[in-house]
């Protein structure tokens, strides 16, 4: 069986989490002043910055009368992994990630409100330790909120994979790099937890259909847990923001 050692006999994962626990998430909105919205998010050792510009008038070629065009750019910092690698912007993997980001975020944005406009979202992974996509989606959501762009709901992303405890399958929530590298299947889902709809779903390998339901429901539970954390961060940020403004007006 794959990854037999991912769960100890006491039911703990390699880093000490239980199967249904998220990594520590810390986040902050409005970290930059230049963009219209920005956010910084840590999910364990994975650290991501997101910046949002817009909505502004779309360039002619991209313009659509249906709604706003969402433009995403995902990139990884040279120093983001253990081995330093020069990563040209727009390599195949980044392009794929950009597309997936766009798919998830477009699902959340009320695109019909801004025809012939464009929103640019830049995501930079500062440190990658597994689940960079999930962290990117979560950070972008915060950045969009910071930019004041109307969303249908929070879009949250979380991953899950399979492990076995005493031969019984037990899905693991929010997979870190070590668990990813152990070679099991990783399921990544981006969803709008408050509506229950799924914006994106990806499997890294083949997963037997017997297990699909349990793994997916664990990842969805993760999305709901993340939504609560993001919501709390937003509220705290807004509360902080009002007091600041008050000081200025006085």
């Amino acid at each position, binding site marked *: *069986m*794959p990854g037999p050692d991912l769960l*100890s*006999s*006491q039911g*703990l994962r*390699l*880093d*000490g*989490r239980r199967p249904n*626990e998220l*990594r*520590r998430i810390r986040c902050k909105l409005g970290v930059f002043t230049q963009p219209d919205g920005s956010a910084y998010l840590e999910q*364990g*050792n994975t650290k991501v910055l997101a910046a949002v510009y817009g909505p502004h008038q779309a360039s002619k070629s991209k313009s659509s009368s249906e709604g706003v065009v969402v433009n995403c750019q995902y990139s990884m910092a040279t120093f983001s992994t*253990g*081995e330093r690698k020069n990563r040209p912007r727009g390599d195949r993997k980044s392009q794929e990630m950009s597309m997936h980001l766009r798919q998830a975020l477009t699902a959340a944005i009320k695109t019909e409100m801004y025809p012939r406009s464009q929103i640019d979202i830049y995501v930079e992974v500062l440190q990658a*330790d597994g689940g960079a996509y999930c962290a990117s989606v979560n950070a972008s959501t915060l950045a969009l909120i910071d930019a004041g762009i109307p969303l249908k709901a929070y879009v949250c992303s979380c991953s899950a994979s399979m492990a076995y405890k005493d*031969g019984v*399958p037990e899905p693991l929530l929010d997979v*870190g790099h*070590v668990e990813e590298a152990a*070679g099991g299947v990783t399921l990544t889902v981006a969803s709008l937890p408050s509506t229950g709809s799924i914006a994106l779903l990806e499997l890294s390998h*083949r*997963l*037997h259909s*017997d*297990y699909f339901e349990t793994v997916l429901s664990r990842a969805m539970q993760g999305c709901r847990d993340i939504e609560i954390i993001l919501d709390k961060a937003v509220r705290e940020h807004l509360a902080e923001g009002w007091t600041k403004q008050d000081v200025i007006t006085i």
Partner: protein
Amino acid sequence: MQWTTKTFLTKTKRGNVLKIVREHYLRDDLLCGSAVCNICPHKDDEIVLDNKPESICKLFDFEHYLVLDTNVVLHQIDVLEENALKNIIILQTVLEEVKHQNTAIFQRLLEIVGNKNRKFYSFVNEHHKDTYVERNPHEKQNDRNDRAIRRAASWYASHLLLSKSDFDGKIPQIILLTDDENNRKIAQKEGIVCCTVKEYVENITGFAGLVDKLSKNVIPETCSKDALYPAHLTPSQIHSGIRGGKLYQGTFHASRDNFLEGTAVVSSFDKPILLQGHSGINRAIDGDIVAIEILPKEEWRKPSDIVLEDKADDPGDTLEEEALLNTKVDSEDEITPTGKVVGIIRRKWRQYCGILLPSKFPGATRHLFTPAEKRIPRVRIETRQSDILISQRILVALDSWPRNSRYPLGHFVRSLGPIGDKDAENEVILLEHDVPHARFSEAVLACLPPDDFKIPEEEIKKRVDLRSICICSVDPPGCTDIDDALHARPLPGLSPDGLKTYEVGVHIADVTYFVRPNTALDKEAAARSTTVYLVDRRIDMVPGLLSSNLCSLRGGEERLAFSCVWVVDENANVLSTKFHKSVIKSSSAMTYEEAQIAIDDSTRNDEIASSLRTLNSLAKKLKQKRLDNGALLLASPEIRFQVDSETHDPIEVQAKKIMDTNSMVEEFMLLANVSVAERVATDYPRCALLRRHPSPQPHSFDTFLKAARQQGFELDVSTNKSFSKSLNEAVIPDRPFFNTLLRIMATRCMQQAVYFPSGSRTQEEFYHYGLACPIYTHFTSPIRRYADVIVHRLLAASIGADVSHASLLDTKAADALCDNLNYRHRQAQYAGRASVALNTHILFKNREEIESAVVLAVKRNALQVLIPKYGLEGPIYLPSDKFRYNEEEHVQICGDVILRTFDELTVRLTLDSSNLQHRKLVFQLVKPSIPGVSYIADEQVEKMEIEEIDKKENEKKRKESTGGKNKKKKSKK
């Protein structure tokens, strides 16, 4: 939950240093597992440690729990396995270190922890917020772990003390067991009670014999006083030596014949590296991975072809002269690269079976142990029970081999039974071949259906009902695990070519109906992989209720089956194939002989007889087709023992009789296996379990071809087809056995067939050389082979008769499964052969015989001969003063007598019992008679032969009265 990170450095494959940062969560919801505690929120089943853990050690008169350090677990696992020590805390730090260092011991430890009665609690100290310790800068990992263990020990003490307020009675204390003096000193300073294992165990009352199991783990390199052996290099010296190209890594193989010689295969040398003498081998034991230094070329030698046994009669710790080894080197090409062991990279020790050497001093506690495996040196053990153990087969574990000890140190593990006792000898065979043979556990037995299992009606409805069809099984006599049955009946229509058509079915026991995936039963069967057949004992893969009853396709009883049904024309061309689950009722379970009689008896015209005749004639055509394709008819000498019904001792032996019906069953099994293989390989391109037989290496035939040439036959081995053809033509009319002998020898030049998952090989590599078919698998014996169980599941999922399972489609799991299957099958074969040898020895006790023999190989100092009647093989030693060995031609010459491979001789057989552990058959030359060498037949022999005949007469009568008691299973298909 608190969050921290662990940072450590590692190296990448390219040699760059990499900093790795891992998250590490510290929790406050981890339990201490003690019944005394009222702080942790235990549920009832989470309490492991007693509230009144009574002391069994005289040194401590208070109640206590034990905390062990890593080395205690690694070295004293045999003590821990005894049901003596209880209430022990196993820290995660220890668990992880053990896992890292020795997976076998780790598994054994998990087993103990899993046993509720033993009260071992594993505490996750590494993730507990109060017991986690961070590694200090410049602190060694070992020191940090010791510190973590001490921290956990003192945390436990204070944690339990906090519970005191509510608890009336004494609070158990914590005792740390560690053999590390330094660690003990620091611990005592920190107020932790500690003790060495030796002191603790020696003062335990009420468990006699526990002391014998104490491991003598001295650190081998520290004993430099009176050192007999050169010191080993340290791991870092070895590492840099290998990287610098000065040292080589290899697996040490000790010689079977000469205890002062061994070889190691090193990838950068064509020939294995020769290692000679005490200092050259330097405490390496067969199987160890060692670091080798190659000697300068002028010191290279050739392997000595002498037999040298460790005869030293417990000389104490001295080494004897090694002059014997310096054989003369005649020419340059004889020498092999020679080296010496300079360090041990990894020990591959296991537990060894053997016997104690009698000690000269009565009442001594230090004894020498001689392992049954000749490649393993004698072992020094300490025991106070030597007067009992001296007559027993015992199991011993190795502990260490210090520089100042001639022999490695070990300790007694358990007794297997009296020497010469059949059960004890069988136990030795099973242990030495790593055959899992413990009784089936409760968990496994719980998976079985009730004894009075009836096939449920709804199950019958799901299946094709074949109960009305005349199906029969044909097996060796006494077979109780019948896994296949057959039927054939004419069909009304003609084939497109206008030929008569038949429906032929092969019905295999539906084992997977009972053995469901991932159950304890399934896991046990997978671990065992195969049923092992010893001469007088069968070690089942699945419990007896299944193997000899519910799955066995007995005559006249309704059974579940997995059927493969073909429509074939009268020329045995397959027109269509279908697979389905079925329910059958075998009309008759026959032996090969009974089936043969039914076919031959022209007065019988019943359904069974006509069905058998159809099968037989179709089988002959199938076989012919197979042979035309280039399939090889191989042979191996197989014998059966007639066993005495009371003593279970063998009383007579005979070569197996092969009848038409053997071949009939075999042909249809092959056909079924091929049909199933095609189906599963199409449906599962990546994870179908198949069996391949690689083409032999061209050079492996060299000696064989040379020997055949001397007898006047040129064999063409370029393809299996040409080989088969030239084997068929190599016949000497007045020597009928010659052709069989050729085939026996040809078989030995070939590689073993192996299981593999379809995704791991290219289509061309699927080829089965021996059967000459492009694809093959095992489907027909699920009762006794686990491979067939997997193939059944794959096929069932493929035809929609059963659900598929995730583990079935996992390619990684399939790889691991195949490795285990191949290993277990090989071991089972060896165990079977060892059992035959054991029984041959019993048979030849107080008996001698003159038999005809053939030469299998000519060696420098001996002939390897085969006795066709018994399938026995052994050496005839030739004195070098009489015989001259011609290396070019592989012949031995004495005067005008020339002995070649394939020559026929007459030999005398007797049993040499002078060495209890290695009784062996002695072969002596009778004819051709050479004065001073051959055994001289005198009148005694004649007399004896008359006796022999009488004896045989008697035995025949006895046989008739007892009937065939033999349970040996048919040969592999």
